[in-house]
Each structure stands twice: as structure tokens, then as C-alpha cells.
């Protein structure tokens, strides 16, 4: 009896099978010959706008840049969209921006001027909603809306004023308090010492920021690490009273620095500034700085924009300040410095 498929006998169904397998292999080789792949999709030019309305300034800026196909195409100077019509309206009044060139404050490798759209004499009203429209014959049209947060109230009580005027009189920390404005998603508190540096060529207005934290890196060499706070979320707590204090050691060290840097100076004032940002600004800011999330275990970078159909940000902020006048001369007390190192 013949066993199907036994050695030396090539059964008919196996021949058929082999034929089909061979055909399939042959066909698939040819079918899949095209192994080219384009990692780049079709390039569709897009616009990115950057504009943050400031209720404390009467000059507003809008930067408009275009996207580009690949880093090889990159010529930074060509990225600005120069043919745009830029308008901002609050529904009743429309402000048309004009273009200008700004010098960079810190010239980098791209040391050229920055092409921006500017509106002078336009001071946004806190609590008002504005719509930005950018229309470019070469890059299209985009529109975005934002609301500038209302103003807040700042206060610092009399005892704090004493501490600020005479930092060595107490170990209390300078404190500022304020209420969170409706619609504010984040705030940033600054504490600055403003002074005049009297030089042979004239009087120069200067300021120094007091850090949130001053870490002594090396007592022996008096090396400090100045750490400044970035914008913090309000957590949506509109109307909440916030008290914000600065370590007295940081403040004292800054007073000393003024004296060390300038042999002939006049102290003017200590100024608390509270900047409250709206939601569009804050979401963009945090997404652009996701790596600041100390607890994140992710390594990707999200790309968020509140501009519908576009890129970038259209946001707003409001600034509140309160100042304490300082004595013209502020003496320092060196021994206290060393206590931090003990």
C-alpha cells in the first residue's frame, strides 16, 4: 500500500501546492518591490502668531512667522510673515498694527533685528475680550480670541514696610498679599529693589530681583545660587487671597549686592509686582515648558496652541504693583550672612 506523500513519490496535491506557493512568493516579491517611503508628508504652510496683551503698556506687539518644510530650508530671517494685515478688536474699536524692526536685547547667533507688528497707543483694558485677526496673502488667515484678566489689589502691611526698610531689624520675611483676579489662570510675583547708580557719567536707574530662594553653594567662597519662581497656577481660585513671602535672607543679600556692585548709590524703592495671566497664555506657557513638571515620567513634549487652526499663542496678562520707599542709604550687617552657613 502506498502511503501518501512517502519518500520518493511526489503526490499530485503537493505539486499543486508547491506551484501555488511558488507563484505566491514570486508575485509578492514583485508586488512589494516598491519600498520607497517619504517620511515627510505634504507640506502645508501654516502661520504661528505670538502676541501677549499687556494691560500696563500702551505698546502691543504681534509676531507672525511661517512654518517651513525642513531644517535644510531654514533661513531664520525669512520666517517672518511680512505681508500680513494684523488687527485687534474688542468689538467696538479695531486697532490696526504696523510693521517694524526691533533690535534684540540680547543678540544671539541670530543677531538680526526682529520683524514684528506693533500698535502704539493701544493699552488693553483689563477684563476686556479681544480678537486678533492676521490676514496674509501668502500665508492665509487666522483668528484668535483672548480676555485680559481684571486688575487685583496688592497690599503689604506696615510691619512689613519696617522689615523692608531695615532688613536687619527683624527676621520676618517681606510679604505681599493679593486677590486672584477672575479668569486668571496663573500668576507671577516679582520683588525688586530699584536704585540709582551714580557714576561720573551720570545717574543710571537699576534694579535687582530678589530671588525666591537663595541657596548657599559654598560658604567659603560666598557662592550663591539665585532661584526665581516661574509662573504658578492659580488652580482656578478666583477671588482667593494669596500671601507670598520672600526669605529675609534673600532680601538682605540683594541689598548687600547693590552696595557691593555700586560704590555710590541711592536706594529708591522695593517693588512688588504681581502679573496675572489668562488661560490661553498659561496653557501655552506650561506646554512649552513641560519638562518643568517635576513629577512627570514622560519624555515627550506636547505641542499646544490656543490659536484655532494655527500655531503660537494669543494671550493676555494684567500687572499690579505696590512699592515701599527705601532709605537712600541702607547699611549692611555682614556677620549675619555667615549664620546661614552654620
Amino acid at each position, binding site marked *: 500500500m502506498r502511503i501518501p*506523500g512517502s*519518500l520518493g513519490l511526489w503526490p499530485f*496535491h*503537493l505539486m499543486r501546492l508547491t506551484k501555488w*506557493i511558488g507563484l505566491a512568493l514570486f508575485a*509578492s*516579491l514583485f508586488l*512589494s518591490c516598491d*519600498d*520607497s*517611503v*517619504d*517620511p*515627510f*508628508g*505634504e*507640506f502645508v504652510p*501654516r502661520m504661528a502668531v*505670538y502676541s501677549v496683551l499687556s494691560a500696563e*503698556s500702551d505698546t502691543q506687539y504681534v*509676531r507672525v*512667522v*511661517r*512654518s*517651513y518644510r*525642513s*531644517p535644510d530650508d*531654514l533661513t*531664520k530671517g525669512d*520666517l517672518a510673515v511680512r505681508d500680513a494685515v494684523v488687527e485687534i478688536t474688542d468689538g467696538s474699536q479695531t486697532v490696526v498694527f504696523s510693521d517694524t524692526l*526691533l533690535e534684540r536685547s*540680547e543678540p544671539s547667533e*541670530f543677531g538680526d533685528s*526682529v520683524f*514684528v507688528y506693533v500698535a502704539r497707543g493701544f493699552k488693553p483694558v483689563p477684563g476686556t475680550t479681544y480678537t486678533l485677526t492676521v490676514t496674509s496673502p501668502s500665508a492665509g488667515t487666522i483668528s484668535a480670541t483672548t480676555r485680559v484678566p481684571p486688575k487685583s489689589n496688592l497690599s503689604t502691611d506696615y510691619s512689613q514696610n519696617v522689615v523692608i526698610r531695615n532688613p536687619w531689624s527683624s527676621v520676618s520675611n517681606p510679604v505681599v498679599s493679593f486677590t486672584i483676579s477672575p479668569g486668571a489662570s496663573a500668576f*507671577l510675583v*516679582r520683588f525688586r529693589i530699584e536704585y540709582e547708580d551714580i557714576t561720573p557719567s551720570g545717574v543710571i536707574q537699576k534694579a535687582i530681583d530678589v530671588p525666591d530662594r537663595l541657596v548657599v553653594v559654598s560658604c567659603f567662597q560666598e557662592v550663591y545660587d539665585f532661584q526665581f519662581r*516661574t*509662573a504658578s497656577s492659580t*488652580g482656578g481660585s478666583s477671588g482667593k487671597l494669596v500671601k507670598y513671602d520672600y526669605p529675609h535672607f534673600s532680601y538682605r543679600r540683594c541689598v548687600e549686592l547693590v552696595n557691593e556692585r555700586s560704590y555710590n548709590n541711592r536706594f529708591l524703592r522695593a517693588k512688588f509686582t504681581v*502679573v496675572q495671566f489668562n488661560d490661553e*497664555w*498659561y496653557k501655552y*506657557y506650561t*506646554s*512649552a*515648558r513641560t*519638562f*518643568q*513638571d517635576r*513629577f*512627570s*515620567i514622560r*519624555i*515627550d513634549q*506636547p*505641542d499646544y496652541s490656543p490659536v484655532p487652526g494655527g*500655531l503660537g*499663542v494669543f494671550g493676555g*496678562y494684567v500687572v499690579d504693583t505696590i512699592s515701599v520707599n527705601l532709605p537712600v542709604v541702607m547699611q549692611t550687617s555682614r556677620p549675619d550672612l555667615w549664620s546661614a552657613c552654620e
Partner: protein
Amino acid sequence: MIRVSFLFLYATCLFYSAFAQQADIHGTVSDSTTGERIPYANVIVLGLSKGSAANTAGYYRIPSLPLGAYDIQASAVGFEKRTVRVVVLDDKTITVNFVLPPSTVRLNEVVVTESMKPELLSTQTSVHVIDQSELKQVPVGPQPDILKSIQILPGFVTTSDVNAQFYVRGGAGDQNLFLLDGMRIYNPFHAFGLFSTFDPDIVRTTEVYTGAFPSDFGGRLSAVVNMISRDGNAGQFSSGVNVNFLSSKIQIEGPIGNSVQGIFTGRKSLFSNTFKTYLKQDVPLSFYDAFAKLSIKDPSSQDRYSVQALITDDYLSGSSGSDAAYSWSTKAVGVEGNFLMSDRLFWNLTLSLSDYEARRIVGEFGSAPPGRSTISEFGLRANITSYTDSKDIYFFGFELDFPKAEYQFVDRLGTQVRLAETLLQFSLWMRYQLNADGVNADLGLRAEIGNFFRWGDIESALEPRASISIPLSGQWRAKASYGRFSQGLITVSNEDDILPIFTPWIVIPTALKPQTANHYVLGVEGPLTPVLSATVQAFYKQYPSLVAYNRDKIEVTDPDYINAEGESRGAEVLLRYSVPFMDFFASYTLTKVVLAQSGFEYPPRYDRRHTVNLLNVLRPAQGLDVSFRWEFGSGLPFTRLVGFYEKLSLGDAYPNSYVDETGQPIPIYGAKNGARLPTYHRLDVNVNYILLRLPGLEAKIGAGVTNAYDRKNIFYFDRATGRRTNMLRFFPTAAFSLEFRP
């Protein structure tokens, strides 16, 4: 429920003992040359429709034979049959241990083997059992490899040649459970996936469940690879060495006294040396692994105990000072006992300790942050088989695991972050396997008590499982399966990584739900001709809860991960043809996977629509075999880059700081995974020949070609430049092995 089952059993036994004289026949089936137990051997009573299949410990039991004389026959793939005459005189259980000699004539082993394992395969829909002999037939490159070999089975998708990690029926890579003698192995790969950490010579049998697995397995959503190691040769001492382009290996096994046998294997990579010497390429990769096992058998009973240990270590050094180096290591030790607790109660008890560590080591100028992921685990697992008077079998047991997952890393702010948590994985299960008029059913329930205590969620704590198999005409059967699964331990890495190298494990936080899945499988299988069999299955896998990147994370307070959903559906066809001089195996898988979060749907990067695997093993002469493997996969998804723009960070957030800021170039991506890479295909050819076979000595040589027609399969491309990197090109290999059997 278990107590009820016991009462039922007890009552049944009383009934039968009162009205009839019947006896059980039980025993083990072993290999005559090595003394090793043979799993899944068939033991039948000739002339009666009674029989049993040995379990993975080689133990069988035929219950309730009336008084009389019977011919009991044992058979197993690759072994001669043996028949023993047994006379049942009273109701005392009779022990019959079979010792089967290996068959001298090769039968249709490779591709029809699965039909010889009815105990497991007649009911389950998505299971494959691979023996060592089958494993070595699959050409997977320079050396045999378990995890590469099983990828020819339908349902498997891989994303690259150099990555043995796989995705089963649309599941993610961390949804597969790897067990070696009951020990959970968290990183079963060497060299980020080039090989598995299991020497194929230590593995006796591998069960692969691609879905709807029974209730004695849990903790993973997609698949189970359950490996059972060899005990070593109980008959004589033997040793062997093997050297190929990629690794060298030594193996020693043999008896230690009358009832103890042992096996030891050790492998060490040779990549760096061979590539540097012959190809002038620097491959900064090295690994070693070692496995040792001691088994004790009680000759007077069916009991068997073993202790086994696995050590693996890998190191990938950075090619420059700015590249990170990586290391992975696994240390696992287990104690296993297989014994009869009472007459019809067979216990399998496993106690294991394992320690896994992965490190990302950053050099002086490194850009990636350093990281360390560890899992320390203690596990106790009991699987109890309760035999009844009929063919029906109850299985029940428990699993108690305490994996402590720790992930330490330095974030971009330089802060050292440490996440450490111990997950209580306590589960109870029961299964009932019944056979009535040819209809087989396997019904089970798994209770994940640990899930309930952690997440308070009853839905993810109760996992029903069911499989049913109905005879059709001829030998054809229709099958259906359902199962619910959950997972509390996941890996976190960038889900868009082309080659995930560092994949830390974390316990899913209580703020999120555990991952869950429902599997539905329907299929038919049977012979098309006496030598050609076919299996067709359709599957639908629903993921009510997955843990995915939070695409909408914007604020610092937004969670990194959120619960997402998903589904995978597809069909598989498996053809097996076998004649004495040739085996042919063909599988086709159609899959579509979609993940969804917050209304956004996208295919994951392992969503391969079509996968074809063809395997042909020819044996033209004694001692010579030639194998061909051809693999085809349609293009994998990827995300296209559609441009760049200059992004401003708003600096220090002070007013107007953005006006003259110099932005950073940021890529603009198209639809997530919206494009497809070119198709993948590759032909591998292997030739093996027994050069010399003398008493006590065997020498083998082998040669092979990977990617025989030098197909340029894309591995990845640089997003910024578009520069393409291909996978393995034409790559010839050779191997030589010597085995001594004094």
C-alpha cells in the same frame, strides 16, 4: 464553590464504591533515554473510548475502570508506542508508569504535532504547543530561539528584525506573560530583543496562548508563553558545546545518584568579537545567561520536585560619550513540586523569587537622563487537578505574587524621582473541563482579589473564561472562546519609540483603572486531506480600559497617563502539511487595531494589517535538513512630518519677554500614525547536517542565510533628515556543535 466541588466529588466516590468495583489507573510517561517526563502523552485503553492525556508533569490518570483486563497504550510525538496489559482486580488504584523509547523513524512530527495534544488543544481556541524538536526546525537566524520561533504562529506581529518583542492580536508588548517553570520573567530578551534569554536546549515544551487563555493564567491582557524546562538526562551524563557567530554555549546534564538529575547551560555572546574581526563593525553589545536545574523524583511515587535558577545579564555600551549605556539583568530562582496530595488530587506547587533590573547609564555628556527600573517579586502558585470518575476534570488553585516595581530616574530639572510600589496580585481560580458526546468545554472563573482591594472595581476583579468545542462532520470541529482579563503592572516608555530600549515597569496608580480586555474567538479546524490540516479563527479583542499617554496634558497638574480604550479585530488562517520528507506550515493573519482616548482614534505603531509566514522543512537525506522561512508583513503605521515652525517658550514669563525671543525649531506632525511604511518581507534559509555520529559523540554543522535575497526592509528613518536605516541585510552564518555522551 470549591467546597461544593469537593463535596460533589466525595459523594460521587461514595456512590460508586457502594455499587460497583472500579479502579483508577494512573502513572507517568517518561523518555527511556533521558528519564524525563513527557508532557501531553496520550494514554488510552484499547478497545474502549477511555483515555487520558498526561499533564505537563507527565502524569496521567484514567478513572473508574471496571474489573477486568485491559490493554493500556501510551503514545507521544517522537516516541514509540508502548502497550501494557493491566488487570483490575479490586478498587485499588493501579500504577502504570510508561517508559517510551524515541522513535527511530521520523514520522509526521513537526506540523501535525499539535493534533497529538488533544488534552489542551481539543477545547481551547488560541493555543499552540511547541516541543523542542519543532522549535529547532524554524530558521530564525544564526541560532535557534524560542521567542523568534513562535513568531511564525498566526497572530504575532513584530516591528523589526532586531527585536524579538512581539505584539499578539493587537495587544501591546507588555501585555504578554512569560513564565519559565512558573517563574515570571519580566525581560525575556537579550540585547533589546535580538534573542530571548531562554536557551532552546533547556525548554522541553512551550505553551503559547494567543488569546482567551484559561483561568489559571492572569495578570496580562494578550498572551501567555508558558515554558517548561527539561529535567536533564537521568540515564547518562552528557555535555555539549556550541559555537556560532553570535554566541558560544556549554551544556552539561546527567544523573546525580539514583533519583536526582540535573542540567546546566551557559551562554555568552560573541557579537563584539566576530563583528569586529570579520565585518570590521563595532557592536557594543554583550550578554550572558545561565540556567541550572536539579530534579528529584521519588521512584516509589509520582512525586517530583525541582529547584531551578536563571541568571541573565546584558550590556549595551554607548558608542560615544553622549550616548547612554544600558544594562538589563534577571535573577530568578524557583522551587516546584508535583505530587499527589490524595488519590485523585494532583498538586503543582511553585515558589519563586525573581529580581529584574534595567538601567540607563548616562555618560559625562549624555543628554538622556539616567534611569533604573527594578522588579523584585515573590510568588507562590498552586495548581490543583481533581480527577473525577468521568473524563471531566476540575482545576483550581491560587496565585500570590508581590511584585515590587521601582522606577528611579533623574528628570530634566535634575531632580531624582523615585516611584516604588508593591502590587498585591492575589488570585483564585477554578476550571471545569468536561466532555459530553464529543462536545468539550472548559469553563473557568478567575477572581483577582488583589485588583478588588486596590481599585475597588468588581468588573476587573472577576474574570470569567469559557471555551467550547463542538464536533462537526469528519474530524472538523467548531470552537468558541471568551475571556476577560486585567493587568495592573505596565511598562512606561515613549509609545512612539521605534525601538523601545529602556522600558520601566510601574504599578498602575489607583487614580487610573487597571487595564482590562475582553477576548472573543470563533473558529473551525480540521483536516483537508490526511496530510493537510487547516485552522481558521476570527477574533475580537475589546479593551474597555487601557493606560495611555495623556495627549491633552498641558499643565503640570495634568496627569501623565489617562485611561483610554481600544479594540482589535482580525482573522487567522493556519495550514499544516506534513509528509515524511517535508513539513510545510503557512499562516496568515489579518488584524486591525484602533486605540481611542478622549474621542481621538489612532492605530498603534504595531497595527500590521497583513502578516504571512511560510515555513518549509525538507529532509532530503538522513541527518540533513534544509529549511526555508519566508515572512511578509504589510507596512506598519508611522507619523509623517509635515514641517517645522519656530516656537517661543515665553522665556521667564516676564512681560514682553517673547518679543525678541529666538525660538526653537519644533516639528509639525501629520495625523498620528496616519501613514504606512513599505511592506516587509524576508527569506531565511538554513541547512543543518549531522557530520559525525559515533557512540558517545555527535558533531553537527549548520549554515544559514538571513535575508537571502537582500531585501532592504526599513527599520526607521531620522525624522529631521529623512535618512533611512534598514534592517538586517544579507547575512550568512555558520554554527558548529559537539555533544558528548560518555
